[in-house]
């Protein structure tokens, strides 16, 4: 599952980058920041990226996952810090779905 999620994250970033100028491309590295001072993204960009990731999850895994739910917003450490933390959060949510 980890490999699948890594790939769908890369695909989501590629889809997100397709509409962006060459100097605004998001690196698909796990350390890429999504929020905070050092990110390239404004709030609407983050919305677009999350939508792209959710759609990749649905298209590749046939699972509808809402990432920006109340739980994500109430975590002491936001799952949207970096691409890597988002990936970990997705894996965690998917494993919980498997557990029932």
């Amino acid at each position: 599952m980890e490999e699948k999620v890594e790939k769908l994250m890369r695909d989501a970033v590629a889809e997100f980058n397709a509409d962006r100028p060459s100097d605004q491309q998001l690196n698909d590295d796990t350390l890429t920041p999504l929020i905070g001072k050092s990110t390239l993204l404004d709030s609407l960009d983050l919305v677009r990226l999350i939508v792209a990731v959710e759609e990749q999850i649905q298209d590749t895994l046939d699972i509808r996952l809402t990432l920006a739910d109340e739980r994500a917003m109430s975590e002491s450490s936001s799952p949207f810090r970096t691409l890597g933390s988002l990936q970990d959060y997705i894996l965690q949510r998917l494993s919980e779905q498997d557990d029932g």
Partner: protein
Amino acid sequence: MAEPRVILVTGARKGIGNSLARHYAGLGDRVIGCSRKPADEYENYRHLCLDVCDETAVGELFSEIKSTHGRIDALINNAGIAAMNHALLTPLDTARRILDTNVIGTFLFAREAARLMMKNGGGRIVNFTTVATPLRLEGEAIYASSKAAVENLTRILAREFGEMGITVNAIGPSPVRTDLVRNVPEEKLQSLIDRQAVKRFAETADITNVVDFFLRPESAMITGQVVYLGGV
């Protein structure tokens, strides 16, 4: 010839939704309609059964639109229910059902449509309100309140979706002779019409005219607007 538009009409089995679906199918657009009960299909028109508040079913509908058409150009968020009753006599279940269908249903379809529209550079969302909201009609506390929520939803979604090229507007029809007003006493309808600047029942063509305007490519700057019929 321009490519046909892909238009989704909720509550398309009867009344205004049915007229709008037939209007756009007749123009050659690809129209998908939905309602809780089945309806006849015709050229350029496909019908699906669902409850507009069922998130899973609505998600599946949009997945199907995505795989079949790859896009959606316009959402006509017409599905709605009403129950005219004094507030003191309105059952809580009725109040919840009206808010669910009219507010949650409208929000859910707008959210899913916008997700698809943003990928294609934009689209048009048309919501439905009512003259009962600005007229603060007695006997329609929950229905008019639900549509007040739809109006604010329209204005805020217009702002949130504006950068994505998606316009969000609402039409507020004055009384039209449909099932929605079937149980309203004639004198009540007449007193409502007497409060309008144009004192007659609206026809579906009056509604189509406004929706056509919102859907036109030239209306890209028209968003967050609520247009009432009849001059209230």
